[in-house]
């Protein structure tokens, strides 16, 4: 394989047939170029999807109650399900290993007033861990803590837009703002990468709001993140178990999605990853079909080369060349053309991707690129392709009868 004579011969043949070499090489190079670009595009789409979702913790589960759609356990259909503090406590205590962070949510609206400025905002009364689950970014001050929850403190974390609306240029930290007439002290300001709308919101301790609304135990949603070490199967298993338990607690039919909905982010990711898996399968398939055309081209050229060199091969055999040495020569030549032109195609694709890839950043398509494993796979494919392309011509060459080759005087 690393025989200088063989390489000399290969280079000689290629040099003497520049156009032919170029044309065949081009078909393989082009095929690899398309294959890599296709894979990179799928990668880009995948990146786009992922970045759309990375606003929230990707291991989160939402539990949302609704109205039952089926009669079950002695209750008629159409019953409203109400989550309580008990449910929160129950989940927290039942799954200490599975639950990473957990928070309730209580939705409300408020008319907020500071000095002469007023505005209408949505309030989410939550637990402190909500900040981690929703990845809320605090730009000033702090999020409220467990002590605030225990003390039912009248504190609030306001969105950036709220701060702009009410406080203008003033520093809102430590100021009192009136929510429906009740004074709340601003302890923090948050931003949200997800959207501007979220920044028109206010967070307050759950307990404070429950007291304001008549010492209720009601909560509107429970959200939690599960142990981040869980894989998809384990995560889905956990959310399934959670769903069963919550439905049993609230006497909702096991298959009734309207009564209680337990939504696992992992499911969405499951959908996306199977979607992009199908996409990459299709693009690999298309790329391969194009590549096959290239391989056939190289095989074709090799057959011609053999035909042209029949006499030479006959002479070599007369001089003592063994069939396997002839096969080696032909295979190496075809592998060499395939690999070389393939690498050129690969290189071009890679240069283009690294030049323009990082500049592409749209919601559905972000930073198309190829991984090292793609490159390695492509290399292996190329070498195999080269061998395949040379196989038939090589066997043909090995079967050249020296007597026939030499007889045409």
């Amino acid at each position, binding site marked *: 394989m690393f025989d200088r004579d063989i390489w000399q011969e290969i280079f000689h043949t290629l040099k003497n047939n520049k156009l032919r070499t170029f044309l065949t090489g081009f078909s393989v190079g082009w095929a690899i170029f398309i294959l890599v670009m296709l894979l990179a595009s799928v990668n880009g789409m995948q990146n786009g999807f992922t970045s759309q979702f990375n606003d929230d913790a990707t291991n989160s589960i939402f539990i949302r109650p609704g109205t039952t759609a089926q009669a079950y356990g002695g209750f008629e259909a159409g019953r409203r399900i109400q989550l309580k503090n008990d449910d929160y406590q129950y989940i927290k205590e039942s799954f200490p290993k599975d639950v990473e962070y957990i928070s309730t949510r209580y939705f409300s609206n408020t008319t907020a007033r500071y000095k002469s400025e007023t505005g209408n905002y949505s309030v989410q009364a939550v637990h402190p861990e909500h900040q981690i689950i929703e990845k809320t970014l605090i730009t000033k001050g702090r999020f409220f803590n467990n002590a605030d929850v225990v003390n039912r403190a009248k504190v609030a974390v306001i969105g950036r837009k709220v701060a702009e609306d009410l406080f203008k240029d003033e520093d809102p930290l430590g100021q009192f703002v009136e929510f429906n007439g009740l004074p709340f002290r601003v302890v923090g300001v948050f931003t949200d990468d997800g959207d501007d709308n979220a920044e028109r919101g206010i967070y307050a301790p759950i307990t404070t709001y429950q007291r304001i609304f008549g010492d209720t135990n009601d909560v509107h949603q429970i959200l939690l993140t599960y142990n981040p070490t869980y894989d998809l199967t384990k995560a889905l298993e956990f959310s399934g178990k959670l769903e069963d338990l919550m439905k049993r607690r609230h006497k909702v039919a096991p298959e009734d999605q309207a009564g209680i909905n337990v939504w696992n982010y992992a499911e969405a990711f499951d959908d996306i990853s199977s979607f992009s898996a199908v996409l990459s399968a299709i693009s690999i398939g298309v790329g391969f079909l194009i590549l096959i055309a290239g391989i056939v081209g190289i095989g074709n050229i090799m057959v011609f080369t053999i035909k042209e060199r029949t006499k030479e091969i006959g002479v070599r055999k*007369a001089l003592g060349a063994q069939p396997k040495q002839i096969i080696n020569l032909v295979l190496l030549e075809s592998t060499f053309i395939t690999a070389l032109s393939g690498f050129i195609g690969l290189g071009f694709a890679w240069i283009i991707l690294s030049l323009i890839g990082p500049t592409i950043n749209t919601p559905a398509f972000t930073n198309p690129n190829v991984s090292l494993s793609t490159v390695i796979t492509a290399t292996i494919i190329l070498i195999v392709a080269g061998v395949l392309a040379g196989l038939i011509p090589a066997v043909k060459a090995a079967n050249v009868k020296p007597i026939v080759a030499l007889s045409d005087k």
Partner: protein
Amino acid sequence: MIEIKDLHKSYRMGSNSLHVLKGINFKAESGELVAIMGSSGSGKSTLLNILGMLDVADSGEYTLDNVPIKDLSETKAAQYRNKFLGFIFQSFNLINYKSALENVALPLYYQKVGRKERQEKAMSYLEKVGLKEWATHLPSELSGGQKQRVAIARAMAAEPKVLLADEPTGALDSTTSYEVMDLIQKINDEGNTILVVTHEEDIAHMCKRIVHLKDGVIVEDKKIEQVRAQQYV
């Protein structure tokens, strides 16, 4: 050195078969210079091809240097050709993109001789045929006689037991033919066994023995007084 007994060979041409060799018995000792003569279609080239293991006989025995040659696989045949035989062709059959030196070194390459030793050996054989200065030239830059001398050097390079020459002077003018025969005679003088297929009387008479083939049988086999080619050069 060479011994063949009752050799038969026929070719199938469509529905009828052509019986080319009809029982050849032949023996050549070491150091002989034999001319195989005959008109075209007499079977002389077929005989040479079988002797050269480029073709297989239908029946009969063939022993080369006490090795029975039969049921050869492609690989084995290639090894035997490389070890036992050197070929000289009418049309030289040099590889046109290799220099004279590389052409001579080719059989050594198939003997798996190291690169350096190969070059040295090839050079010494080129020197023997008087073409040392032409070592780096391509065949296209050589005259017919020079090409054939390169081919002879190539055939010699593997140090074979037998040299087989198929019309070695067929493509050359008479002066050049004599030069080539002079070279073949000198190689024979060193004790090499050489078989020359020819249809030219004068070339045949420069050998030591003439075997006449006609219609697939040997009709005449005689030792002759060798005419030295040197005097015509």
